[in-house]
């Protein structure tokens, strides 16, 4: 139970200090620390990242969602293809999905050119891949459960009953 609570809080904000988490969950600080260590060791918590609104930065960062269709043969399974693709640093997320295509891949690079080069030179040539469809991300409104944009304005009266 406390594991779940700690996880929820870390997902809300991985930078909450152990002291803050302890306060919110009524656990001791060392219990929080131990719980987090266990979750990390067990591979439940796989890492911590910042949620970035790239649109707020000057430098361009280009992202695309790529749909992949594959044809499996006797020797190759989805996992084999996934393993091969996941190794590329450009690939930020890779999921096997149901529906019209097989893999859903998130790619990130510095320019549209780089993304398309990556897809055409590194991904498309994989023999089992029969088709790729690239969707460039134009604007992102929400990432990892966090709404992007200006938000944050609290226009309630500063005092109310």
């Amino acid at each position: 139970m406390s594991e779940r609570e700690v996880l929820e809080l870390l997902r809300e904000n991985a930078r909450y200090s152990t002291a803050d988490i302890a306060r919110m969950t009524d656990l001791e600080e060392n219990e929080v620390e131990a719980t987090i260590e266990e979750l990390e060791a067990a591979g439940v918590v796989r890492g911590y990242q910042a949620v970035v609104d790239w649109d707020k930065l000057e430098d361009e960062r280009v992202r695309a969602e790529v749909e992949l269709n594959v044809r499996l043969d006797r020797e190759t399974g989805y996992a084999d293809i996934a393993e091969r693709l996941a190794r590329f640093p450009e690939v930020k997320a890779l999921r096997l999905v149901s529906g019209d295509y097989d893999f859903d891949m998130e790619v990130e690079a510095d320019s549209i050119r780089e993304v398309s080069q990556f897809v055409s030179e590194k991904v498309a040539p994989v023999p089992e891949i029969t088709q790729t469809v690239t969707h460039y991300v134009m604007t992102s409104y929400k990432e990892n459960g966090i709404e992007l944009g200006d938000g944050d304005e609290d226009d309630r009266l500063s005092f109310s009953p």
Partner: protein
Amino acid sequence: MTIELSDRVKAVPPSGIRRFFEIAEERDDVISLGVGEPDFSTPWAARDAAIASLEQGKTSYTANRGMRELREAIADYAADRFDLGYDPAEEIIVTAGASEAVDLAFRAFVDPGDAVAIAQPSYISYEPGVIFAGGEVLSVPTREEDEFRLTVDALEEAGAGDAEMLVLCYPNNPTGAIMREEDLEPIAEFAREHDLTVLSDEIYAELTYDGEHTSIATLEGMRERTIVFNGFSKAHAMTGLRLGYALGPADAIAAMNRIHQYAMLSAPTTAQHAALEALDSCENDVGEMVDQYDRRRQFVLSRFREIGMDVFEAKGAFYCFPEVPDGFTAEEFAEGVLREEGVAVVPGDVFGAGGEGHLRISYATGLGDLREALARIEAFVADHA
């Protein structure tokens, strides 16, 4: 010429919070812990229902007592959730906020000169409501030693046995105190013995963090002398939609409706559609908000202890009620921390007898802001130690 005001209006001074509001307006970096309303938005399902009702042109008056369907949903909810059994036809009235219901009750039951006992510190509208109705306020202070619960001793000491009516608000605004069944039993007995009508404002009932809420109306012999108030402002984050209700014996609700049908005609129709949906499908949203409040509550309580300010262990609503450090009155502290650190809090005196020397801190504010606000309070305390 100036329009001559009624004595009743003259008897009620402007709100004590007004002045603080003006100071707060002068700065643009104020973090407010002075707000008594959720920082969450109304659950989408309820908003969608409101929108759909508008699209379908459902913008006429409803029955005076509220849409039949909504009253039925309220009856089911009150029965399931709090064991309160009321007949939707005659024992429920839907109002423009719990505020209207409270006002109707005072106007329907108070005669000029009647004494109305109010357990304090408490929500700020009861006193003016009694005065506007021509009644007289009898303050019954509750004390931190009793965990801000009302006791029979306090009632006796204040002479509440001679009053006509007793106003309770648990979970309490501003202290966050709750009353459990065993705390309510002796109060109920006192009410029966002295034939008091009880007005029980239970608008924070869902926001009970430790155990279950008990309504005094469920205790023996209390149903016939109690009016229960509730609404959608707090647990369903619907303050601006203005929707509340009262539950009580048929005659009493009929009397309140007699005023309501002339003063208000009916509660806002759009809001009634939102409320119906809120009861039908927003239980999970409420649960999630309650979980968040609970985390913030624990966070805030723990930070105050760390800062070295004594703080009462609030178990309900979304307030906590720390004591101001020595050397300050509540008002001085509130004004100082607002001017010097840009944190808005409400001095406890505003809430009546028993609130002196305390601050009301609302944690209906995001955790990031809470953390910053508490750091600023800590700095203020350190500067003036």
